[in-house]
């Protein structure tokens, strides 16, 4: 039995196939969910992939939230379903209010594509459970609007409630402040990924699916993908009816 994971495809998504590739390597049964469909086809977890949904016109992620599939994803999230947004997917989640904060234009106002180091802030979330202790993960970022922003009170609350999932760190393992070279976009408090209060919805700017095979320079991202697949499988077993048959 392989667990079914839905990958949403918006017009302009461009990491959907990469995400499906990584999920397949992790032993999941990924299915494409077209933006116009209102059903999630029984998926046990949903991934919103990277790209430029609807061209990112107006503002990254802002149009996607009004699509039929996002209404279904929001309902699924509210009911406790697992949702992971990567890069543009994170932007869509933030615009939809499913995770706190906003992604602003990168501090230097340029698109940035490079390897970063991120540190998980907790290992007991559905998205980080397979990670080794005290790991620093190397994976690429590629975005123009990835500067994580929230007001000070929200940031304090996120830290207090354990909703910060990943931070950019320097070579010495220290948190990369907004102006540090190790912080690719100026994110406040070095935040690279956050979860909602219930912990079932998470978003991050780095691309774990691009770091899922050693030949591509890093397979650290596979820990995240595997965490998601394990968590989804566990929920599918508990909930039933959300497991696809092997293909």
């Amino acid at each position, binding site marked *: 039995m392989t667990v079914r994971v839905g990958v949403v495809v918006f017009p302009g998504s461009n990491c959907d196939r990469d995400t499906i590739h990584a999920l397949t390597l992790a032993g999941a049964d990924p299915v494409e969910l077209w933006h116009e469909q209102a059903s999630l086809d029984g998926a046990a977890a949903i991934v919103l992939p990277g790209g430029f949904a609807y061209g990112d016109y107006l503002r990254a992620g802002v149009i996607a939230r009004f699509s039929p599939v996002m209404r279904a994803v929001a309902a699924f999230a509210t009911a406790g379903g697992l949702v992971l947004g990567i890069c543009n997917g994170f932007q869509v989640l933030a615009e939809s209010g499913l995770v706190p904060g906003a992604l602003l234009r990168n501090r230097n106002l340029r698109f940035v*594509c490079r390897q970063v180091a991120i540190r998980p802030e907790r290992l007991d979330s559905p998205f980080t459970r397979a990670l080794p202790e005290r790991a620093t993960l190397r994976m*690429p970022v590629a975005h123009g609007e990835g500067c994580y922003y929230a007001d000070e009170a929200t940031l304090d609350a996120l830290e207090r409630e354990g909703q910060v999932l990943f931070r950019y760190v320097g070579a010495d393992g220290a948190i990369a402040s907004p102006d540090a070279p190790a912080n690719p976009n100026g994110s406040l408090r070095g935040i690279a990924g956050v979860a909602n209060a219930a912990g079932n919805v998470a978003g991050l700017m780095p691309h774990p699916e691009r770091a899922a095979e050693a030949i591509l320079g890093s397979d650290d991202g596979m820990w995240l993908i595997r965490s998601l697949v394990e968590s989804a499988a566990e929920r599918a077993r508990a909930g039933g009816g959300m497991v696809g048959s092997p293909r």
Partner: protein
Amino acid sequence: MTVPSVSGAPIVPAEPLHRRLGLTDSELEAIHERLDREPNGLELAMFSVMWSEHCSYKSSKPLLATLPTTGEGVVAGPGENAGVISIGDGLAVAFKIESHNHPSAIEPYQGAATGVGGILRDIFTMGARPIAVLDALRFGDPGDPRTRHLVDGVVRGVGGYGNCVGVPTVGGELVFDPSYQGNPLVNVMAIGLLEERRLTRAQAPGPGNLVVLFGSTTGRDGIGGASVLASATFTDTDPSKRPSVQVGDPFAEKLLIEASLELIERGLVEGLQDLGAGGITCGTSETADRAGTGMCIDLDAIPRREPGMAPFEVMISESQERMVAIVVPERYEAVRAVCERWGLPASIIGRVTADGDLVVVEGGLPADGHPVPGVREIARIPAAALTSDAIVHQRLATPPPRRGDATTVVGEGVGGLPERGMDPGAVLLALLGSANLSSRRWVTSQYDQDVQVNTVAGPGRGAAVLRVKGTAKALVATTDGVEGVGALDPYLGAAMSVAEATRNVSITGARPLGVTNCLNFGDPTRPEAFWQLSEAVRGLGDACQTLGVPVTGGNVSLYNESPAGAIAPTPEIGVVGLLDDIALLVGPAFVADGDRVLLVGEAGAGLAGSAYASLAGIAAGDRPPALDLQRERALQAFVREAIARALVASAQDVAGGGLAVALAEAALWSGLGARLRLGVPASPAVELFGESPSRLVLTCRPRQAPALELLARQFGLPVEALGSVGGDRLVIELKGQGATGAAEERGSRVADALDMAVGDLLHAWEHGLPRALGQEG
């Protein structure tokens, strides 16, 4: 003829229409011959774009016909939208390079963006999914504010488009040279992967089939892009030409890619053509002519972006992100449904006919040859007259008066770095930190390099390497153009460009499959510029012939001149290679302490055209180094064989900046130093910084060194053991007649060795480009 007006001032009659459209009087004559009558205004406009240099290759066609175009695995060659070569496992690779120089000079963001869009369409039109882009850029002085504006706009444009459509930018070049001050070069290469059975041709077979236009609507943008912009010398900042620059929409392109590939995958189209230069006129006449058919186009059926467009505007508009599909009538519904799913409007705009004419009507399509009442024919031109039977010019080629003499000669010692008495360490630092040889990361980090998860080696360290999912194979790609030598000797420059590009592929272990070329030259009606072009094509042909790589396509960009003069002749060469087993891949950086360092090949005299010469100045009468194509062939065969036998740890090409820069890069990319001794028979500058081709720096495990040296000798190649990898400094001791002489002259032994911390080399290399562009202090 002038006639006095009432006021007494002479009235100059308006230029005749054909001249305003960029056609010469003799070309108008040739149109008369083909039509056997006067063309009307619409027909003249259609001829003007199709007979532009950009679409017709009217000056270069006779030269290009001399190039070798066939070879193992070539499935599609020149004349198609892109070259296609089989790579086994039922797969094939499609690739092509194209220029967008003049649009980028006028509007750098859109010019570069639509350059990317156009070449991607050439790839997916063949049924291939675009998997990579490489961009070869050339600009003037990096300190000049206008250059900085152009660099910023072009880089944002390449990134803005490529990042959005989800095709990684994995390589390319960025070169600064004064000759590009008024006329930058933006050459973009794209690579696609396809199942060979899905190969789709840009043709319109089957009279009665429907001509379906899908994608964006047609507007007034890009009117005369091919004729006004791409095929004429221009003054650099003329804002009146901005309307001729197309405007790109990468989101629409992304939808177009997915819809087109789905149409091909499901077997719904008989032929597919993108609309680029020449717009609908080009897309319809070329597909009809290739299939030996004709076409009837209903102007009224073409969806417009704005009202009041004249017929000629509709027919030659270069509005972006549009495709023409040839569809069997029964499949139209399915085609429309696919387009609709991707949010793309689709319209039947015409039918394929049997008579060989491209006919434009207003008021409806004549069904089965029977005209509908009210239908008005507004143009009728044999499709061949616009394409395969377009005019060809035999241009005059005259070498410049002092052929071969270095035109950039400056006195010895300029810049304080004369040939003798120099401090080689200081020269190396200056070269590594120079605008042309320093890290390109400031640019490449603005491009998505990793999307599609195939990028094993991205931009910045030699050729790009892309794994082929589902196989053990990898594709290796590079672009190279040796403009410094091309300015002195266009034949040699072109041959060296091919040698360098194929060498960069071979040193990974891959076999070069084919060459695509973008020939950037000046005004072909100037005999000296045409001589440069013909010499370069000769060099290109000789090199490809000897090295055994076919030319599968490319693009010619002429009229690259500004009031400041013509560009250095720049044949930009793109090569794609195949590595059968990615486990054998070898990179350019040092690998391990203790590895032996070998130099294969030998330096010849000649510093002209080198990075050292532009930094230090060269002696009057100096020549560029020579190229022996047979030696090059042997060198590449040797390194591929050595890698296949797993004898090589790292392989680095000696190119810009010479051996010293090659060694420094191998060191700073790995963080490993080396302790080396280099024989200097005559000139330390030639040995350390000369750019003689056909040389490699190889490293290997100590026990493999004898076998590697033996293999080199079996291939007839000189090989010199330089020393070992290790430590955190790059130390090169100079020995021999040349080194000793230099030391005696200075009365010091200091400069007989180059001794630099790898960290210092890295620092110079990393900060050179942003400093040159004023991005950091």
